């Protein structure tokens, strides 16, 4: 019925500026790390087709500007997200401390049907810089994730491509589960939404 026959999973990547969101996405999708990515302005997305439990799904990974003041304008694309990835830099305490704000911001803007069960995945990035620079221990991060409804946690390096595949596999899996649960919920959604969808599909002009 849907005009897009494939399953499209929308994933939003959030976190302070400079924690490595753009680098992680590019490492995952394009398999490369570059020191010359520019600071993200506005928003963009990359897509990747992956197989989750024999199902082919398309991940649409949204990368946004990390600076807080730009968030208020770009929330249009939070809607309809299936999973939210929170990224911080293990060498920056500040970037860890703001995770809660990013999470809240997301829940307010995306207003998922059931905020309690909405899937988040947390990534602590830049572990390649070495222990002596590290500000947030794995133990502390795990405790935090445990507290917030057992969010899956990965320690990654976009530069050295550590744990990136694994993390996104879990992200895809969680997103798919979320999408499927939303589909069931869809039966009870109000008629207006359904009509709107039809209108969008039906236009042949």
């Amino acid at each position: 019925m849907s005009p897009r026959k494939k399953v499209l999973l929308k994933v939003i990547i959030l976190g302070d500026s400079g924690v490595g969101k753009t680098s992680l996405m590019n490492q995952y999708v394009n398999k490369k790390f570059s020191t010359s990515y520019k600071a993200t302005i506005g928003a963009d997305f990359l897509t990747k087709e992956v197989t989750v439990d024999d199902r082919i799904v398309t991940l649409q990974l949204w990368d946004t500007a990390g600076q807080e003041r730009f968030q208020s304008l770009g929330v249009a694309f939070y809607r309809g997200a299936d999973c939210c990835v929170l990224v911080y830099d293990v060498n920056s305490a500040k970037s860890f401390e703001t995770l809660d704000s990013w999470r809240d911001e997301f829940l307010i803007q995306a207003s998922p049907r059931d905020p309690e069960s909405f899937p988040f995945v947390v990534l602590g990035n830049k572990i390649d810089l070495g222990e002596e620079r590290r500000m947030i221990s794995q133990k502390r991060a795990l405790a935090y994730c445990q507290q917030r409804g057992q969010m899956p946690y990965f320690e990654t390096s976009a530069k050295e491509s550590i744990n990136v595949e694994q993390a996104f596999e879990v992200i895809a899996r969680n997103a798919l589960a979320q999408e499927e649960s939303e589909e069931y919920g869809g039966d009870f959604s109000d008629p207006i939404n359904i009509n709107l969808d039809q209108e969008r599909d039906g236009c042949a002009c």
Partner: protein
Amino acid sequence: MTSQQASSKPDPPSPSASFYDLSDDEEGGYNTITHTSTTRGVKLLYSKSKVYVHPTPSAKDNIPGFIALVQQKPAPLSPDDRPNSSDSSGKRTNAASYLLAWVPEASLAQDELSAYVKVDLKDGESPPKQTYLVPPPPVATSFEESPVGPYSFSLPLSSIYSIHVRPPSLGWWYGSIVVNTRAGSSLPALFFHDSECESTILQKKKRARESFDPFGESGELFWGGDEVIRWLKRYVMVERSTAEPSIYLIDPSEEDRLGFGQGRKSLEGKHQTVNPDMKKPNQKNPPGPGMDPLTKALKETRWKILEQLSKVTTFTRRTAEDLANNKNIPPQVRRLIQNPEIQTLQDEFDSAKLYLARWAMTIAEQSEREKRQRIWTARDALDSEETSVGDFEILDMEAGKMTLADSKRRPVNLEEWESFFDSKGRLQVTVDEVKERIFHGGLDPEDGVRKEAWPFLLEVYGWDSTEEERHAYMNSKRDEYVQLKGAWWDRMIEGAATPEQEEWWKEQKSRIEKDVHRTDRHIPLFAGEDIPHPDPSSPFYSPDGPGTNVHLEQLKDMLLTYLEYDTPPSPTTSSAPHYQTRNPHPQNLGYVQGMSDLLSPLYAVFQDDAVAFWAFVAFMRRMSRNFVRSQVGMRAQLSTLDQLVQILDPKLYVHLQAADSTNFFFFFRMLLVWYKREFEWSDTLRLWESLWTDYYSSQFHLFIAVAILEKHRDVIMDHLRHFDEILKYINELSGTIELQEILFRAEGLFRRFEKTIEAVDRKNTFPEPSGGELRQRRPADDADGKNQDSSTSAIATGTGNPSSTAAGSSSTLRQGLPARPRQAPAQQAQKGKAKEVEKRAEQVVTPELRLLLSRKIITFDDEEADVAKPRASGLKD
């Protein structure tokens, strides 16, 4: 398989069945039917809409019509009118009873029209099962004799000698066919406006959907003319000439085959007189299908590309490289393929769609380039082809000026710049003259004139200053810069007054550092790393090697100095002799992403940190509204852009509305850093100096945005339906936009806007009694909506667009939304009222739009008045 589909689903008899759509069963034979005009009806087998005759080079004179294949009388040998494809002798005997016809839309009565439309929209390869009878088209063997119009014709297939087929391709935006009769004359060329023809659009879409294959059987792009050949093939022998692949011979005799060369020549001659605008052969690439490089490249690489698109796993980087290095591929496509993001496109969701959209743009671009050349050389070729956006109107309006302005489009070099000043270094021409020159010509990138001129454009220097005054001024500013820089330097060493401040500065510093290290590193000045990083705690510090270069360090210092300048002194500042900012209006922005992008070109041009700094301060007077916490400046610009598109291109606006894209967010990046990410470095400098002149408007950058949008509007409207698709498409324009062209378009758009506002104002002063729509565009636009009240003709126009006005369309859209189920009648009444108000409001030019006519720059202070409260949020910035 399509024909099977079609025949398995016969249309039920229409409840409003008329003379024109009787079914076979009801009808029982031709002779029982007589047409009102007493002529017998003919059977309409195929028709295609939006096939035009272009009688003159002017698009205004184009005549839309239908090409059709009709059957004159029942086949004498078989009661079944569907041809028996294996029986070629049958074909021959029938050739006289089938007529190929072209009739202008305007000559068709309403019932006829609806029959033509229905047959056109029939999905399937065989003629409709149901019989559609129409009055016989005028029988004329050549167009001069036709009773209906000078161009309409209908010819028995037996009297057609050949058809010259020219698919759309490089420089030939519309494909065309020319019918060459056995009597030796050529009928007027028929142009297939595929982008308006609903059935062709549907067929194209179907192909794209089913197989990602937009190409026709022969490997060329699918287009309307193919269809005609396919129709004919069902009834007569159609032979493609091997010598001249663009010629199809109809029922050729052996003689015909031999004498073909001559036939072709006479056709060429005729063709030329009918369509003078078409006969401008490009010297290097003689026109003709199969000969132009794009079509050729398309053919040669088609499978590779399609393979790349659909076959994910077998695609290797090597294939991409082969493609990229293939010299036959037009440079744009080559660049496209080289783009690493495209290389991964095969992985992407809906990649084929985006790819095809881009491909379509490539073709459009080629054709446009050619058009533009014609515009600049031959004025009369100007509106040879119609575009729905009214491009030609812009160009039309500007064409005279553009040719004149050629000499004014040369960059201003140092010598010319110096000639503007007298011996005391005071300007001796008017500021407007200088600005006009720079707006159109830019500044010479090589000879250092930018260093001289930019401080004026940015109003660091007054235009009426003398050399001596400027010298003195800059000296004092140098001192001030050193003091400002010293202030944060001191603080770094001594520590800030409070721990919070300390923390804040540290954070700002690390943000700046992160961004500077990812700003314009492809520019040689900023590329290398040759000195050790001064701060061992920085992530960019490396104990065993250089981590930075002196220019990156300068950028960091300047941004920190700007922070010092822009941050109001705190009351708790320690008594240390810190520099107190002399900035009368510190905005306390903090460092915001994008600032480093704005600074780096200034620094690169001046290569003097103090001058660059003050130039940056001046630049930020106009740009700071982009960076304020509330984002009110960005919101205001995006909303103005929204209004601007509404008024300049209502049809596109409606499309964007339907695609949920009127937030115009995809222009965020362009507006924030003035297209720095979209254009090459050198073009960015050129663009900025034009924008700094405020020659037409201080908001000219918004017209640049509309110009970019307009250039891609057809592709967007044809291919992109959703916000994400549009955003991706626009984002990926980065690095592909041709600046000169966009400047040219933006100028035209500005003038059109200005005229529109004038017209509205005039109307408001002298209101028309009937209260005509203000947003109506031009007479040209009305032309295709002339029968708006008749639903039949709305279909026939092929666009199905209910309205050409923004006001009308938006309310139509709103009406189109499903009503909420339990709406109180009172509420509805109120809603109706609201619409009234809205309509009236639209007759007044909004202040935002009017501001676009002003050359005065808009600063943050101007916008503070209506600052929206920042959204409550846990995130502090």
